[in-house]
Structure formats: structure tokens, C-alpha cells
């Protein structure tokens, strides 16, 4: 693999860009791999990457039914933060956030990580108390975050209307080191690094069956034939129940649509990310100038990657109150992804009832920010059978009543 550098750009400019090579190989599958990862989204690719980087396991295939990064990883609004309430969440999201800081250098791929700061608005008394509590918890967890008053919110976000008709802004939880990154680049950067380590990333290869013998996985059936493996990682987000059914067990997950939309590009007007959980809307401005907008999920099980129009309307209505300028914007595109929501709204990084099958799912509406931390923990779990970061995210927690209840505690979302 040729490295990307300022020198490479200059060299290629001089020879009409004829020297760039493909970022990753597209091989046909081998008969057998030590490890198969199903799903070439951010979490699957990061898992493969850290299997190679941290444990020297490189006889790995990543199987993807569509194109890599075409699932939720390429559909999300890219908000990155780590100021969650519960200890296990704060630990893994903060690990991920800190890995994002050096990801471009580590991968030699520009993922455009932009730590521009994230504000979560408090618009009810309940949220004020909740966020102050989170700020204190974060202080103990070593996660940088602070409570800010309305005047400071206005300073950071001049386009905001503090005196909204229904929900005035009472303050906010501010994480200065949060921000955004380029979602495709995260998938592409990991794919390139995995391919360079000799791993096979096989696109247009859907897993259609999981084979096991004596309670232990032996391989998968795919649209490109049967492939054997010692260990199998299922990292397919909204499709996780479908895959676990092939392996003969159920998951505590339901799949629903989550949508987002972007406006026409406008001049720079907001250089932080703002989330408003009470009214269900959040917004940031992309480098191209588009306002990137998201809201809440639809209420019913859905695999179509299309959502209901009235949710878009609700989201935009909510944002209109808080950012009156939004009412003048034309929206350009709207899309949906199928998100995997667990009983306590926290993810699963877990062993399963079948030996050597591991599952990483349940990131729901907020897993982009977790990609490097999740891959780190999942690789450790798959390589060694144990990972401190993943421990509390075992699917056994539902049996033991050890929930990681972020939905009630932190006011959900991204």
C-alpha cells in the first residue's frame, strides 16, 4: 500500500494522477478464514482492524452484502461525543472519542475528525437536573464536559432562539472535544488499512446461513458459496436479529427506521453541533455548508430503510422553534437507516449461545461515535475471550437485571 502524503499529492499532480492505486483489494473469498466478520460497516471493519493491529490476527474476511459503509455508517449524522451517564458507556464512548483524535494519522487516511464541540440543550427542569448530574458523573469518570448557562449557549450558537414558545433554553451540557467526522472516510480508512494487512473485504456477498456443529460455529453460507471459519463476528446493526435467527438464537433487539435530512448549502452559520432531545431534533453544518438534521425514530418494526414523513415534519417543526432561520431553508435530501434498538438502549458486545459466535449490535441511533472503541473491545473479546470495555455490554445483562439504562438516564439520542 502506498502511503498518502503531501508529497504523494504533489507527485501525482505532476503525472496526471495516474499513479493512485485502489484503496483496497476486492478478492474472491477463500475456502476458510480464522475469523469471519459479517458486515462491513464501521463496527465490523474496526473489529477486523484491531484484530490485526492489536492481536496479529490477519487471516480475516469481512463479508458485506451490499457495498462497504452502505449501512448506517454511511447514513448517519456523524455526531461524536462521550458524555454519557453510566460508567460502562462513558468508558467505551470516551475510548472511542480519544481514538477518533488520532484516527487520521493511525490509518493514514483523512477522516476529517472535527472536534468542534457538542451542546445538548436542556429545555425542561428535568433535563437541567439530568445534565448537571451527568456533568458530575463525567467529572468522576474523567470525561471532559461541563454545564453551561443560556448566555454561554447563545455565545456559542448565535442563531439560536433562547426564548422558544414551548421550550425555552435553560442551559446545556457542553462537550468541547466532541464533534463530527466524515462517515464514509471512517469506513474507507479502516477498509484500506485492513486490506493492507492482508485481510479480504468481500462486497456483494450476503451471509444466508450460519453452520454450527456441537454448539460451535464452523462456517457460513453466502451468495458466493460456503466459507469456513473458527470464529464468527456478527456486526450487522439492524439485521442482527435476522442473522441470529440463522444461528438459532434470538436477541433482545428490535429494528426501526431512523431518518435524517440535509438542507441546501448556506454560508457558515453554526460551528458547533446542537442537540435538542426534548423536542427531538439536532443539527450541525457540514463542510459543504448543508445543515445536517436528524430526529427521532419511527415507532414500528421496519427493514425498508424508509421512514415515515410525519417524523421529518416533527423534527423540522421542533428545530423551527429553536432555530427560526431553519424555516427559510430548502431541504435537499432525506434518507433512512434501520437501527437496532435493545431493551435498555445500550449496545451488545457479547458472546452468544453458540460457541465462537460473537455479536456486536444494538448501537441503535448512536453508534457512529463508538466505532473505534467498539472495534477495539470486540477484537479483544474475539481474540482473548474477555474484554474489560465490553464486559458490561454482554447480552447476559438482561437475564441478570444489570441494565445500562442510558435511555432513562441520559435522555437517549446520539
Amino acid at each position, binding site marked *: 500500500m502506498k502511503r498518502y502524503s503531501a508529497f504523494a499529492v504533489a507527485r501525482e499532480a505532476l503525472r496526471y494522477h495516474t499513479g493512485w492505486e485502489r484503496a483496497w483489494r476486492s478478492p474472491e473469498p477463500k475456502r476458510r478464514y480464522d475469523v469471519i466478520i459479517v458486515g462491513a460497516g464501521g463496527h465490523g471493519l474496526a473489529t477486523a482492524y484491531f484484530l490485526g493491529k492489536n492481536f496479529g490476527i490477519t487471516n480475516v474476511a469481512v463479508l458485506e452484502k451490499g457495498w462497504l459503509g452502505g449501512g448506517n455508517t454511511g447514513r448517519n449524522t456523524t455526531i461524536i461525543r462521550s458524555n454519557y451517564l453510566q460508567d460502562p458507556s462513558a468508558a467505551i464512548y470516551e475510548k472511542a472519542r480519544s481514538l477518533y483524535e488520532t484516527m487520521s494519522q493511525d490509518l493514514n487516511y483523512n477522516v476529517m475528525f472535527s472536534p468542534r464541540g457538542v451542546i445538548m440543550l436542556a429545555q425542561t427542569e428535568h433535563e437541567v437536573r439530568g445534565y448537571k448530574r451527568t456533568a458530575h458523573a463525567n467529572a468522576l469518570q474523567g470525561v471532559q464536559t461541563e454545564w453551561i448557562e443560556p448566555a454561554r449557549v447563545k455565545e456559542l450558537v448565535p442563531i439560536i432562539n433562547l426564548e422558544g414558545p414551548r421550550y425555552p433554553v435553560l442551559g446545556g451540557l457542553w462537550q468541547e472535544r466532541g464533534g463530527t467526522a466524515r462517515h464514509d472516510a471512517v469506513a474507507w480508512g479502516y477498509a484500506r488499512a485492513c486490506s493492507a494487512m492482508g485481510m479480504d473485504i468481500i462486497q456483494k456477498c450476503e451471509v444466508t446461513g450460519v453452520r454450527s456443529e456441537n454448539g460451535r460455529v464452523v462456517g457460513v453460507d453466502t451468495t458466493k458459496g460456503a466459507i469456513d471459519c473458527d470464529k464468527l463476528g456478527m456486526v450487522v446493526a439492524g439485521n442482527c*436479529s435476522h442473522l441470529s*435467527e440463522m444461528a438459532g438464537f*434470538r436477541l433482545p433487539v428490535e*429494528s426501526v427506521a431512523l431518518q435524517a435530512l440535509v438542507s441546501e448549502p448556506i454560508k457558515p452559520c453554526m460551528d458547533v453541533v446542537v442537540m435538542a432531545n426534548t423536542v427531538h431534533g439536532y443539527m450541525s453544518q457540514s463542510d459543504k455548508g448543508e445543515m445536517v438534521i436528524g430526529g427521532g425514530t419511527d415507532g*414500528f*418494526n421496519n427493514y425498508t430503510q424508509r421512514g*415515515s414523513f410525519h417524523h421529518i415534519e416533527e423534527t423540522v417543526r421542533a428545530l423551527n422553534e429553536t432555530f427560526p432561520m431553519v424555516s427559510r431553508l430548502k431541504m435537499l435530501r432525506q434518507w433512512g437507516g434501520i437501527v437496532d434498538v435493545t431493551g435498555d438502549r445500550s449496545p451488545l458486545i457479547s458472546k452468544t449461545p453458540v460457541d465462537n459466535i460473537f455479536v456486536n449490535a444494538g448501537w441503535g441511533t448512536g453508534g457512529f461515535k463508538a466505532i473505534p472503541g467498539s472495534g477495539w473491545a470486540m477484537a479483544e473479546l474475539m481474540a482473548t475471550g474477555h474484554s474489560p470495555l465490553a464486559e458490561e455490554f454482554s447480552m447476559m445483562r*438482561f*437475564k441478570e437485571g444489570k441494565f445500562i439504562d442510558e435511555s432513562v438516564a441520559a435522555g437517549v439520542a446520539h
Partner: protein
Amino acid sequence: MLILECPYCGVKAEETELAAGGEAHLKRFGPGSSDEEFHDYLFMRENPKGVHFERWRHANGCGKWFHAARCTMTLEVFGTYSAQTTEPPKEIQDKISEKRPNWTWRDVK
């Protein structure tokens, strides 16, 4: 836009009139059941790619709960039926079999 006919008041209600209530025909387990049963009842879900039976409430209408049979891959609605049943009625099952011969749902089919 999802449209479901309320089996009680007969109104063809569109989504904003309805509240989704999740997977239907869960067998309830409480005191005296095993940990396994209680856990499965509370948290494990079919979440199928295909035929799904689910509960809905005609929230901004007659207010009553009812059942719907729907495909999660196409959003096709096979029919709605009363809440007073522990499994989908035969005519709904037949209708689904016509369109999706290989459908399954727990131990119903």
C-alpha cells in the same frame, strides 16, 4: 404512509392517528415462572424480516388496542384484527399464506 383499519370503529386510520405497541401475542410470564421464561418474555423479540404481528392503539380515535399483521420488508399490511385473541385468526393466516407461503411465527406456523 402506513394506513391501518381499526377493527373496532372501522376507521381507516393513518399513522399519526395511531400509536405503535410492539410485538403481539407475547405470552406473559410472572411470579412462579423460570428466569429463562421471564427474561424471554420481557426482552427477547422475533424482530423478523418479513411477516410481523404487532399491537397498535387507535390513540387519536376510539382509543382501543388492536392487532395488525404486516410485512416489515415491504410495509404491506395483511390485515388488522381484534385484541381479544392470543393468536392471529385463521383468515388472516390464510391471507398471509397466499402471499408469503413460507412465513413462520413462533409456534403458530
